[in-house]
């Protein structure tokens, strides 16, 4: 029983997803402003402040304005922040302070199902944020329609990967303020070096290899393909990497959470 049991996984996890959704529904009207305005702020700041310094960016065989290059990356990073924060801070609060998981474990649900529900919920929240953001970017001409709609299922997939990584940290972190560590040592460098603000092809190869390890890089590449129709890597490779992240970190997350909660 201490091991991860596939036999304990069923569609019942949807009830926990629904619990999170019900709780979130009370605050979504406020939260939904964040993805609505965030891209506008970035595009204004970089468009007004940066474009004077940088003429344009050569990427995937195209000559792009800097804001055009950067806008799809905003979608990708929003997906990352939303899903990672949900399974770290928010899940930690539910697990540790609200004892929500303990309560659910007295019902016909397994811990495996609870954790899967948390991860799927985080990914759903991330795709919702991405959908709102895309509406803004499409309407101001920064993303192609309807191809950019593909970013929504993509955000769900990548959301699963980031949420699994987040849940893994939640399983091993002693106290809530220690989330600073993975955020500053892992998420922030990933945010900066995943081809978000400059093409990976423009930095030395040895540095570019590190970028390839970041799941965000793969998401940024795919997002650019769907938003502006070009990319510098291969769809199959990017998708395979993201799926591998889900499988590896999903399994690790289940293991460490099981060790943490089941006594």
């Amino acid at each position, binding site marked *: 029983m201490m091991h991860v049991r596939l036999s304990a996984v069923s569609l*019942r996890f949807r009830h926990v997803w629904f619990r999170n959704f019900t709780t979130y529904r009370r605050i979504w009207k406020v939260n939904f402003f964040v993805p609505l305005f965030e891209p506008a702020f970035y595009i204004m700041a970089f468009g007004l402040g940066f474009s004077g310094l940088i003429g344009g960016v050569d990427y995937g065989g195209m000559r792009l304005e800097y804001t055009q290059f950067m806008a799809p990356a905003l979608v990708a990073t929003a997906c990352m922040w939303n899903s990672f924060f949900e399974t770290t801070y928010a899940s930690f609060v539910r697990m540790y302070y*609200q004892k929500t998981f*303990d*309560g659910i474990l*007295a*019902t*016909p649900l397994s811990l495996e199902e609870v954790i899967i529900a948390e991860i799927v919920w985080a990914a759903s929240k991330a795709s919702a944020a991405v959908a709102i953001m895309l509406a803004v970017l499409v309407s101001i001409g920064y993303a192609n329609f309807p191809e950019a709609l593909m970013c929504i299922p993509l955000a769900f997939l990548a959301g699963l990967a980031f949420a699994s990584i987040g849940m893994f940290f939640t399983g091993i972190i002693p106290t809530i303020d220690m989330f600073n560590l993975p955020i500053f040592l892992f998420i922030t460098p990933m945010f900066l070096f995943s081809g978000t603000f400059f093409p990976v092809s423009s930095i030395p190869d040895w540095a570019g290899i590190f970028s390839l390890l970041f799941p965000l890089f793969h998401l940024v590449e795919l997002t650019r393909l769907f938003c502006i129709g070009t990319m510098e890597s291969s769809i199959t490779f990017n998708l395979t990497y993201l799926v591998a992240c889900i499988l590896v970190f999903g399994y690790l997350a289940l293991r460490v959470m099981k060790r943490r909660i089941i*006594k």
Partner: protein
Amino acid sequence: MNIIEARNLVKKFDDFTAVDSISFGVDRGQFFGILGPNGAGKTSAVRMIYGFSPITSGNMEVFGLDINTDWRTIRSRLGVCQQENTLDPDLTVEQNLWLYARYFEMDKKKARERAGDLLLFFALKNKRQAKVMELSGGLARRLQLARALMAETELLILDEPTTGLDPQSRHQVWDRLFELKKRGLTMILTTHYMDEAEVLCDRIIILDHGRIIAEGRPAGLIEKHAGKSVIEIKVPSEELKAFVREKGLKHDDLGELIIIYAEKHDHELEKVVRERFCMDSCLFRSGNLEDVFLRLTGRELRE
């Protein structure tokens, strides 16, 4: 058929043995108490009943099913009121019940009806729209009990249900539990309030260091391990101590206090003690579970 049948149940955490080979059975309709000092293994034992904690060794059958393999079926038929508040603080009282019913795949209409009945039963009807965050300790505990009963529960597990409640709330909880007992619900209670166990339980086991050190009906345990009648004498004289020894009375000498236990209400003995030794202050009372508990588990602090 017994509702619960535990045989040689063991729970180990690394090299610490929390539950050390205990066996017990609980009949249908019984109110069963598990008592013991802090760290005696009560919560560990209870968590094995509903499959929260895996069993290290031994057997646990609930409703005739094995907890290792049929945990999902077992959990769908029982309710647990955990020691800590596990309610959803952001949701309203009734939302808490509705969402909980979903975990049991109960249909929506039935869940709403059942929630309405339970809110009435626990006198929470006028609070149904209130946020859980705003509830007092007593109300939150009643809601947690209501939630544990949402799934047409056949067995209710209560892990220290009245800890931290004021006397009014405590009595209200007891009153509701009595009512449930009348309806034939099987219940398991852990507590370290001896008066609670004495009032509520049909049968109890006392755990210490993970083992069962006594079991039986509360009245039987009182007769066996303490006495029906108890006399407490403060600041006992040497003369009294000699008298007690000479008569061969069952007693505890605590230095500043001597406690004499008598099989029945012994008027002769009471008269003698009252006339000869009660210079300062004496207390004549009935024996209770607290006497049993302290005699069996000792008076030293545990933590």
